[in-house]
């Protein structure tokens, strides 16, 4: 049974692992973007090539640790608490994938923005009965997360061949294989594999800048969402009386 009545209850939206994951992810991203551009544009006055490269290389494992270890850990641990393997699947589907409900919410937000709909649709749904979120993130975030995940994967594999064209791991010639794969795609753009890798690495860097602006300043520069700055960086709290939170009271089946 749905219960949309507001409550003064305060719950934990982001636990400390998620907060630190996000913070380190953000720091890694910002440093990688800055140092990458410093190398590309030759900002020798701001930072030397060697320092930029050192920082760049240092931040790569930080990004990978947050993105490929801590984020999956968050998904798995939350999902497991909600109901084992089935809970993990449900948690991932409802919290991270853009579904039909998200489409309706997003449409409502756009209509609200242009004054065609009075109500700003709540996008966070908290279930009091289970003590878990049914869904948490802004619909646009869900799109960003999937696209960003793919973009991170691509920027990592292009970065590998830029780092060393003969990079291997436990004897597996990763860079060589990647260059072969890039070589299949690159003729479309009249490039060789290495050229394509460098081009794509730069293009993805620009993508992350644009995404960062949308993520931080479009989505969060709204009075409705502004409290989540504090939540993700500081205390992790969710005030359930917020207009963008829907509280339900449904027994899970």
């Amino acid at each position, binding site marked *: 049974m749905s219960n949309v009545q507001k409550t003064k209850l305060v719950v934990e939206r982001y636990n400390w692992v998620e907060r630190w994951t996000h913070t380190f992810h953000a720091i890694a991203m910002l440093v990688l973007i800055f140092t990458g551009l*410093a190398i*590309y*544009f*030759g*900002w*020798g*006055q701001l930072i*030397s*090539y*060697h320092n930029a490269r050192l920082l760049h290389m240092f931040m790569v494992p930080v990004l990978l640790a947050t993105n490929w270890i801590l984020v999956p850990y968050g998904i798995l641990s939350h999902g497991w608490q909600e109901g084992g393997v089935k809970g993990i699947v449900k948690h991932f589907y409802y919290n991270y994938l853009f579904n039909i409900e998200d489409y309706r919410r997003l449409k409502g937000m756009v209509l609200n*923005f242009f004054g065609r709909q009075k109500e700003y649709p709540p996008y966070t749904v908290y279930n009091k009965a289970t003590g878990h979120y049914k869904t948490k993130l802004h619909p646009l975030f869900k799109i960003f997360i999937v696209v960003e995940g793919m973009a991170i994967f691509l920027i990592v594999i292009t970065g590998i061949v830029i780092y060393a*064209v*003969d990079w291997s791991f436990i004897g597996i010639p990763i860079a*060589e294989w990647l260059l*072969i794969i890039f*070589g299949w795609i*690159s*003729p479309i*753009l*009249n*490039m*060789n594999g*290495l*050229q394509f890798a*460098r*081009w794509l690495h*730069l*293009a993805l860097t*620009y*993508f992350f*800048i*644009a995404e960062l*602006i*949308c993520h931080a*300043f*479009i989505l969060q*520069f*709204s*009075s*409705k969402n502004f409290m989540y700055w504090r939540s993700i960086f500081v205390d992790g709290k969710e005030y359930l009386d917020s207009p963008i939170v829907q509280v339900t009271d449904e027994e899970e089946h």
Partner: protein
Amino acid sequence: MASEKLNMIEQFKNLDILKVDRRTFLKAVAALGATSFVSLYGNQLAAAMSEITETKVLWLHGAECTGCTISALNASSPDFVDALSRLNVSLAFHETLLAPQGIFVDGELVGNSELNVEILLDELVKAGGYILVVEGAIGNGPDGTGKINMIGTHTFKDIYSKAAKNADAIIALGTCATYGGVTVTDSATKRYCDFMGVNQTEQRRGGMNAHLGIRDKPVINLPGCPAHPDWLFLTMAAVILGRIDLNDLSGVLDREGRLKVFYPPTHTIHDNCPRRGFYDRGVLDVRFAEGGCLWKVGCKAPYAHGDCALRKKNSGTSVCMQAGGPCIACVEPIYPNGVMPYYVETESAGILFGINIGTVAALTIGAAVVAAGVHAVRRVNKEK
């Protein structure tokens, strides 16, 4: 650099070059260059060559500028003639050097091989047992006739076909012969001319050999515009001395059919560029003759594999970037279409409808900033 070279010479000077394994031989070849290699091992080579029968080389010219021949002729220590004689090579046919003439009477070849170069070529091809050096692309157009590329009354495609089928091995010399080079530059006439490399055209495998059904023929690609004379002579030396097994080239060639020792897959030209220090300091020239790294004025060395920057040209005195000219990646199959405009860095070259990635990024980021501003203003006003 000089001390590095000295160390290399020290490292290799006591080798019995004829007894070492293939890997060490090729390492010495790659590290030392022709001059040092021949001066170090000259006596051993001479002794070995005296026991080796003469190697016949047949050198054909297709669609090209003869630059690779000029480059080979400009070799020094050893020079062209010296290299051939030291390697016990008989240059049986070379159109530029033989001053060939053909004599026809009523459309029939007359004379003998000493007077008539076409008879000479026929006889050499029939006899077989030669290394074929191909310089220049092979014309296939229009419509597969090969008539775009005629030599006398024959298409070069036919000449090449006969010569290639009877060759022991083929050395494709220069980027035109290896990948098409400047002959496959994008143009309105490109598909009518249909120029091909020996085993590959641009990034497409196959080339003229596949078209002619010539399979399993050992082919060594030595691209470059022009190819370095060291690459040719040292390859010949390795082949003649049996240090390169023509029946198993997979270990010594990269994916583009190039010898790994001269075109190392593990390095780019940028890695050893004489101007590399400027790149590391972020001194990136935006105009020519500023003295710094040439990347931003279109240098393609970060995408090109070759030992040019170590081996250098003009008897080891200089290389393109050292002379102030950006690398144009002439050793790569993408040359020239994938490296043009020459003086614009790849990342700034137009990709989609002529728009480069920097412009796309500026528009996208600009749009994101504007959208963020509009969104913020709108939301604040709505709250009021």
